[in-house]
């Protein structure tokens, strides 16, 4: 076995109250796709940020190509041949592709030359891109290409990819994997961060598994079953949610022919939407980020108004109603952004309970707030949904993501909605918290409420929803029963590979099939 290209020994990084990395060691060779596997919060991101020079370790050392490696900044890392594709893209919407690429390079060539090289490299690797387009106008998949090309132009030895598939359609995932395999044959090391087991088994040569900041295992993922990997990752077996209900009732809420512009600068316009959700069912709406999810939630919650009869609650036109009028009628919502949209970060949980519960929980009489009722509601949520927090007086931003999300979902569910709309309910949560939230949504539907779940996590939607519809560039596909729906079909509903020409070798449908087969 050749000497490792990258070696990490005894790395430790602590934040106040949390040890993010504790005695982390691993080694990785050239020509390897090396997985860093772990749940959200296991310390994967801290680890790669350290490798990329964004964080400095408290203890431990790193070696690159046999030499000591201690990058003080990403500049140092890039000079040493380490590049990184971020999970939350480090891109600038108002700048064009070439400018974005230039910002990621140490010594960029003149702009015109750079544009040519971007075209060359993007075609070589099957990731076509127009260097002159504003990044704000690109889809999530295209944005990721900008990041990858930015890295490739530097000819790195080590390429770090942080959860790269979370924003891609299955077809786009297949293309990405081809690119990564090709880079592997060129002798590069790819550090691949993910919590998706099937993906890692399909792609990676070696996996280092992290839990609570420590290394709990190291193996060839192709030799292990998904179940074995999951147990090393989570530490215990997970209870799967109870079966979904199968007796949809009458139509609770419907949208007909709704078109709505976005309020945001680079937002997505909703185009001619049709949608129906019945009592007792969960309607799953899938889609890659930036295809109109925020806009759809806003239209349903009442934050954006539309023509009165474009949205019907039973026989009642509610399109022109604001959030509180809808709440009074039993239409509730939980937005994706937990801090700063669903809750006010610097306000405590009592105030945040009043934020959405004021009307339905009778917290306001003659204009005056009854803080006692607000506190009671907050404490009820904390107790029923197992929100781990010192008390209702804690401010929202002091809660962990999982606990805050449980509070947000619980706050709406305990108001006994007839219709509940949630956007990305388990994003960034660990498996236990995610399972708890999915279960509570299933329970709510079981009690006869109509639930709409907007999510990018297709596995999640397959698990809990009875019908599935895809949101693509502001359009909603015709809903299908989730039973018997294949990943390939879902991929096509999601807009396939977004006008992508696939490089050499297989044609697009073949590849889509391949992606379908390697996933559950």
């Amino acid at each position: 076995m050749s000497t490792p290209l990258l070696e990490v020994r005894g790395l430790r990084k602590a934040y106040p109250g949390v040890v993010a990395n504790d005695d982390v060691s691993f080694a990785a060779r050239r020509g390897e796709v090396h997985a860093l596997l772990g749940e959200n919060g296991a310390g994967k991101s801290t680890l790669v940020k350290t490798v990329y020079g964004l964080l400095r370790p408290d203890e431990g050392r790193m070696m690159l190509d046999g030499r000591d490696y201690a990058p003080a900044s990403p500049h140092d890392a890039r000079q040493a041949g380490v590049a990184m594709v971020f999970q939350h893209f480090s891109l600038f919407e108002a700048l064009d592709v070439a400018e974005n690429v230039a910002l990621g390079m140490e010594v960029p060539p003149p702009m015109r030359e750079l544009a040519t090289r971007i075209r060359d490299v993007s075609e070589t690797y099957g990731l076509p891109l127009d260097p002159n387009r504003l990044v704000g106008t690109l889809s999530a998949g295209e944005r990721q290409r900008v990041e990858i090309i930015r890295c490739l132009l530097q000819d790195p030895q080590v390429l770090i990819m942080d959860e790269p598939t979370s924003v891609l359609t299955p077809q786009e995932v297949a293309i990405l994997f081809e690119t990564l395999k090709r880079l592997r044959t060129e002798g590069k090391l790819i550090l691949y961060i993910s919590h998706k087991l099937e993906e890692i088994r399909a792609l990676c040569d070696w996996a280092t598994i992290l839990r609570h900041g420590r290394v709990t295992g190291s193996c060839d993922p192709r030799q292990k079953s998904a179940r074995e990997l999951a147990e090393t990752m989570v530490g215990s077996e997970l209870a799967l949610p109870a079966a979904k209900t199968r007796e949809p009732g009458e139509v609770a809420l419907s949208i007909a022919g709704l078109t709505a512009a976005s309020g945001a600068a680079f937002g997505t316009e909703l185009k001619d939407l049709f949608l129906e959700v019945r009592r007792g069912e969960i309607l799953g709406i899938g889609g890659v980020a930036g295809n109109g999810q925020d806009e759809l939630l806003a239209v349903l919650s009442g934050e954006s108004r539309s023509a009165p009869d474009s949205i019907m609650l039973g026989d009642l036109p509610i399109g022109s109603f604001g959030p509180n009028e809808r709440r009074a009628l039993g239409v509730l919502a939980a937005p994706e952004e937990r801090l700063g949209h669903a809750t006010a970060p610097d306000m405590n949980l009592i105030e945040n309970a009043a934020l959405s519960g004021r009307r339905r929980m009778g917290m306001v009489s003659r204009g005056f707030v009854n803080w006692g009722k607000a506190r009671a509601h907050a404490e009820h949520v904390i107790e029923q949904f197992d929100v781990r927090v010192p008390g209702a007086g804690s401010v929202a931003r002091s809660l962990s993501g999982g606990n805050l999300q449980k509070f947000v979902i619980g706050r709406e569910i305990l108001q006994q909605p007839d219709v509940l709309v949630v956007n990305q309910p388990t994003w960034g949560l660990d498996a236990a918290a995610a399972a708890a939230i999915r279960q509570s949504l299933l329970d709510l539907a079981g009690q006869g409420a109509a639930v709409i779940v907007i999510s990018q996590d297709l596995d999640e939607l397959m698990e809990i929803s009875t019908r599935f519809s895809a949101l693509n560039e502001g359009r909603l596909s015709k809903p299908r029963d989730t039973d018997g729906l294949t990943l390939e079909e879902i991929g096509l509903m999601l807009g396939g590979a977004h006008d992508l020409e696939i490089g050499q070798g297989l044609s697009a449908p073949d590849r889509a099939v391949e992606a379908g087969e390697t996933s559950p």
Partner: protein
Amino acid sequence: MDLGSINPVLLIAALLLASTPILLAAMGELVVEKSGVLNLGVEGMMIVGAVSGFMAAVESGSPTLGFLAAAAAAAVLALLFGVLTQVLLSNQVATGLGLTLFGLGISSLMGQGYVGIRPPASPRLELPVLSELPVVGPVLFSQHALVYLSLALVLGVWWYLRSTRSGLILRAVGESHEAAHALGYSVLGTRLAAIAFGGALAGLGGACLSLVIVPQWTEGMTAGRGWIALAIVVFGSWRAWRVLLGAYLFGGVSVLQLNLQAAGIAIPVELLSMSPYLITILVLVVISSDKRRAQVNAPNSLGRTFHASG
């Protein structure tokens, strides 16, 4: 009333000069806002520049030293804002207001012994040959050096933001400080440099007022020009050439209303005096009513506090 007494050639010459302080301050603020910082203290920096430049010029007898002192003093004041907002993470709106209030106070304190004095004259820059051309010669080629400097700055800022790497980084920091930080660029360093530059230009603008245009020191002599410079940056949708246009529009209105006052037109003097402010408001309304465009052009991180965790 004698409208015939208004000479269009002189009017344009006066317009170029009258616009210069606002143009300088607005170009500085443009760079600051492009880096994602909203400094509402332009008025305060201008007036401190006006008084510092005046004092230095009177004491040394050299207008050039005066201009340098004005730029330096206002840059120091701007850095005070920079440290407060960027290091101590204070609210930019409140701190900018504080800067203006403090600047107005400290300037009248500094300028106590200088009221009613004439500063050393700052000569016009006669461009050889060109200045002797009929009509356009005296108008365009026989102005104070600062007029040319301000035009050169427009060109320079435009080129810097568009074509240099450092300009690209500055725009990137203003667009998304998180992403710029993730790529390893210094948000703090970039912004402090931009803030100091903005301060220096505002100071220069103030000195242009006290040393060239008026030329005298009186308390509160900037009379809202710093605020108008801020408005012109919005009016120019954060683009150098449009800021130039905005500054000259304002300068034109100011000079015209003064000429109308002098000509004794039958409009109350006060109404004429308020016209530059009213017209500034009017153009602001027109330019910002297109909400979508305003959003696309404004730097995305404008006014937001940045704190690098970890």
